[in-house]
């Protein structure tokens, strides 16, 4: 595949694939939806891939659930919920060319168990589909695929899988596909990683472990760390003695301590990652489209617009 000219390892700006990762409960899905909204608003044709069978993402974009079909979620933006088994079958059909043979393969119990049990197959299916989307081999045509990665396994497993499969299988159409996908996700100019985190002790510890795993297994660092849920800065002047007397003392103390923890943990994160850090306030807003818009506004400040080509 021809490489585009003039694009250095540019983080998020020129990437064709962005994998958003992070542990459960850190606002990863909100960040994925906000990134998709932001970059679609900057005229990139975005497909947001969801792998969770419970389909939480459509509620963040105010559209009906995808159920395996692309759903238009605004100008330049589609939501797509992927079922790895179905994608794998589509890949086999595509690679085997002859439909009756492909059906025979995908209907066989060997194939079922192979996709279920063989390590890395589902991951390969998802990333292989992403590659086909940006190559315009399947609809909707995209410049950029954003994957809301599963909360377990840190998303590193997702990115490491194609290389593992390629090594394990070697030849055959699937082996060749694994090789192509491994090259795609291994190229920092084409694939970027965003880590979502909270500035609290355990989530930061998990983020630091994730950075180490990324260095070790993928040889890369995050292109952006999106830190969610920050309490507002605590006023430095001694104010509010009156409020304290009127019963808000507990809330003030909670705010002060939480903000102090946020700052401590932000420092720990900043010291461990060289890349940019987006500081996202804790908005008085339930998860949903309105929160996504506010988070997208914060991310806009952290991701400089792409220079005109």
């Amino acid at each position: 595949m021809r490489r585009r000219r003039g694009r250095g390892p540019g983080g998020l700006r020129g990437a064709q694939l962005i994998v958003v990762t992070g542990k459960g409960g850190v606002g990863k899905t909100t960040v994925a939806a906000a990134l998709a909204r932001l970059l679609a608003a900057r005229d990139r044709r975005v497909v947001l891939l969801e792998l969770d069978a419970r389909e939480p993402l459509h509620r963040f974009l105010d559209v009906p659930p995808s159920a395996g079909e692309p759903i238009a979620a605004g100008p330049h933006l589609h939501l797509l919920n992927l079922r790895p088994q179905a994608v794998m079958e589509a890949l086999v059909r595509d690679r085997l060319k002859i439909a009756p043979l492909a059906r025979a393969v995908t209907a066989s119990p060997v194939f079922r168990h192979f996709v279920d049990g063989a390590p890395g197959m589902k991951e390969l299916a998802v990333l292989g589909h992403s590659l086909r989307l940006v190559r315009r081999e399947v609809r909707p045509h995209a410049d950029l695929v954003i994957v809301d990665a599963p909360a377990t396994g840190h998303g590193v497993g997702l990115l490491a899988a194609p290389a593992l499969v390629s090594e394990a299988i070697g030849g055959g159409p699937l082996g060749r596909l694994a090789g192509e996908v491994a090259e795609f996700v291994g190229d920092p100019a084409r694939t970027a990683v965003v880590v979502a985190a909270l500035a609290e002790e355990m989530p930061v510890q998990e983020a630091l472990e994730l950075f180490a795993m990324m260095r070790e297994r993928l040889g890369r660092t995050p292109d952006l760390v999106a830190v969610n849920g920050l309490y507002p800065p605590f006023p430095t002047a001694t104010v509010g003695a009156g409020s304290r007397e009127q019963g808000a003392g507990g809330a003030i103390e909670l705010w002060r301590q939480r903000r102090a923890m946020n700052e401590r943990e932000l420092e720990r994160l900043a010291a461990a990652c060289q890349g940019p850090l987006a500081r996202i306030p804790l908005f008085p807003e339930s998860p949903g489209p309105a929160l996504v818009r506010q988070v997208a506004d914060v991310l806009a400040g952290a991701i400089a617009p792409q220079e005109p080509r």
Partner: protein
Amino acid sequence: MTAGPRGTPLLVVVGAGGVGKTTLAAALGLAAAEAGARTLVMTFDPSLRLKDALGVGDAARQRPVTVPLEGPGLLEVSLLDARATFDDLVRRYAPDAAAAARILDNRFYQHLAGHLAGTLEYMAVERLFEVSAEGRYDRVILDTPPTQQAIDFLEAPDRIVAFLDSGALRIALAPWFSAAGRLRVGAAARGVARLLDRLVGLGLLSDMAEFFQAFSPLYAGFRERALAVRQLLRDPGTGFALVAGTGIERTPETLFFARRLREAGHRLAAVVVNQVHPAVTLPPDLPAALAPGLGLVAWLGQRDARGLRELEELLAGDPPLIAVPLRPVPPTTLPALSALGRELATVPALRSRDTASRHGGG
């Protein structure tokens, strides 16, 4: 005094990722030990500070480590490691060392042991079964791994058995391999097999076949044990504490977990809503400097109260619901954990003595 058929009341702490299961499991363990029970807490990935507070390091991956406490009770903490437990099981059930080595060295096994969905969950229950059978403790508390869906954990034994026991897979692989495990690429490899072979090449498939060959003497032991584990999770002496996040938008998820637990025949002991923000009355003369933070905390308090009210109405006391207030500082010291544990123990089902006595007679 015996509790269930196996002697040890178990409490399994389940819930979505990031809701504070590990801290609550440690607090419950501490409270049980301080009430005089010999207690084991099995956990996965505690924070560094929690490990420091409990005084457990990596040694707890090998064997339970005792937390220094005053008083008559005992608290031991064990850290779970899926891969090590799986390896141990292979060694135990393999007919001889050479057979064990064949499995442990197999490339497919090496991927499988770490990656097969539910391995970690299954291994947790395996260890639970072991300590329960030993009968050394009055109380065992199991923290569950951070799965996206709490329910994955419960289905793990069935899934693993189905996979290991998968006659379909062995039969499907059979045409490719002779009884001696040799690859038969000639006449027998035809149709679907040949096509799949064209797709993936032979390397991985021969690894898989070799794995199932090497594994076959272990089937009986694994299967029997998995069935026992399945039974243990449905024992009347085993209770589940479902930990939920705050906010009204989490209610459907919480109810869904609760329903699934019960439908699958598990005893739901309590629902714990963790890290509930306090109710705040904003003073009329609120200084401008305090408005952003206090306004936010007030909003969070209202959001959490709405969620709690809704959940309370829908559960109607069955199981009991307990709200744990958000602490300004996370409870990562022994005194803080102990206070949290005592708070949780106000729900009788979460108290060690109650569970023990309830099942003592029957």
